[in-house]
């Protein structure tokens, strides 16, 4: 990671090194707040904002921080950003604020954010850090929304339910009903459903990666004959 172009940074964030699917960071909100698309989107937007702000600030200040207080300072920056965002949500998106509950302040400890601060922002210039924050944030939100959509469709047969929480009253019309709620597959909304959906998504990503690679090198598509000695 010496110098990579912006294109690389974006590709990393969105796919190759996606914080949710690959780095397995920020899992808590990813699983907890992905019951519906709207919740996911709300939290995702808040996370993007935090990531961009924190990455920018950390990059800006990277020269001035000493190692023994590095973490406290990053955490302070992030916490301030999150609290400000939280207050704003509470004021203007109160319904959503209530639904997201404790997970807004917990953005502070979203490992993806501090992880980016440590791994990227503290070593890169401000614009690059900001782009990285954006890319990672969007990558994270993408996963969040994907899981949200999956769980919402399977679990309650709708999409964009409660959109008014995010978009105001006109959002109510956005709701798409695919089948009646009582035929929903409840498991998807329960905690196990979140884990299973996430596992499925990771597998799908692996599959796509393998396909892509397979196209590049057409021979290596079959499974190895023996279980790999040790994976996981």
């Amino acid at each position, binding site marked *: 990671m010496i110098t990579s172009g912006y294109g690389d940074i974006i590709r990393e964030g969105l796919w190759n090194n996606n914080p949710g699917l690959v780095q397995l960071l920020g899992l808590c909100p990813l699983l907890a707040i992905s019951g519906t698309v709207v919740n996911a989107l709300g939290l995702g937007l808040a996370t993007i904002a935090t990531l961009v702000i924190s990455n920018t600030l950390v990059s800006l200040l990277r020269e001035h921080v000493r190692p023994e207080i590095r973490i406290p300072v990053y955490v302070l920056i992030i916490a301030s950003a999150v609290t400000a965002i939280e207050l704003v949500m509470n004021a203007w998106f109160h319904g959503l604020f209530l639904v997201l509950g404790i997970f807004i302040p917990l953005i502070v400890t979203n490992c993806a954010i501090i992880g980016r601060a440590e791994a990227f922002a503290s070593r890169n210039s401000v614009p690059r850090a900001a782009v990285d924050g954006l890319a990672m944030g969007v990558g994270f939100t993408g996963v969040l929304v994907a899981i949200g959509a999956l769980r919402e469709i399977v679990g309650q047969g709708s999409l964009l339910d409660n959109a008014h929480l995010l978009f105001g009253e006109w959002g109510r019309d956005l709701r798409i009903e695919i089948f009646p709620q009582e035929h929903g597959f*409840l*498991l998807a909304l329960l905690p*196990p459903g979140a884990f299973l959906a996430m596992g499925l998504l990771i597998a799908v990503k692996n599959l796509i990666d393998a396909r892509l690679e397979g196209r590049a090198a057409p021979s290596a598509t079959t*499974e190895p004959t023996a279980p790999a000695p040790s994976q996981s």
Partner: protein
Amino acid sequence: MRFRTRTSPHMVPGHSVGGLMRQVLYALIPGTLAMAWFFGWGVLVNVVLSVLFAVMFEALMVTLRRRPVGVTLGDSSAVLAGWLFALAIPPLAPVWVLLVGTGFAIVVAKPLYGGLGYNPFNPAMVGYVVVLVSFPRELSLWPSPEGLADASFTLWQTLQTTLTGRLPEGMDWDAITRATPMDMMREALVSGQTVHEVTRSPVFGSFSQTEWEWAGNLFLLGGLWLLYRRVITWHIPVSMLLSLATIAGVFWVIDPDQFASPAFHVFSGAAIIGAFFIATDPVSAATTPLGRILFGIGIGILTYIIRTWGGYPDGVAFAVLLMNMVAPTLDHYTRPRIFGHSGDGRG
């Protein structure tokens, strides 16, 4: 002269995995027939459909992985998983419950881990719990034997109900279903009655308890036969039933009005079939002798806790899953003392 080389031992092989599984299937037959006798065709319909689905899913997964289908199906473990799942759900459950349940049992809980032998969780119980939490309504509709008798449910009607999820014209769920003894006990205790009142109530004594006990006894018979055939070892069933009876006994002695008797706990619900057929699933249970005893004890205690204080009426399935989780850790810490070592089994 040249010969084939193969590693030792060079003896006639003993038994096979498929043979083992089929013995378990045989042992299930009497109990299953008893259930069918009391609860109608639905039981058999469930078994047949679930086994069919299970085998189908297994074949599908194996094909997707480009592995030999014949060998995998030949081990009969999918049949067994489907069968056990079918016994856990109410006889008139709609077909999608069977599909989802066997799907989770066979697709998620098993081949995703590599198939037979690798699954850390009991597939049948995963399937059952998934449908239990997803379709609690369908899963709480146990027909009462007498209700069915009144309506004289035919095989055709049963099939109709299963396939459409709706009762035939002119019938009403409320009329033909009744809470299971386990449910009734729970419901009554929740609404402040005492155990005594529940067991005395004519409804309780006259119908459900006896039927359930009969089915239980026949499963017990099958289980004992498995023990005799050395398909299972005594560790898990004995420790599970003993611990369940013990903890139930303790609370029962403390307050016989609030807590049901040990006999009730052992002979109602899924305790017997759980002890002999489900907790003993070798793949997902602990594998060391001491580990197995602890595994059984854990299931017994958790079953009691969930039954008595939990949100679900019967805890065996959850207890099994929870202890499946603990099994690898148990195995890790309960190694037998190796020959020639002092102290524990660490080499």
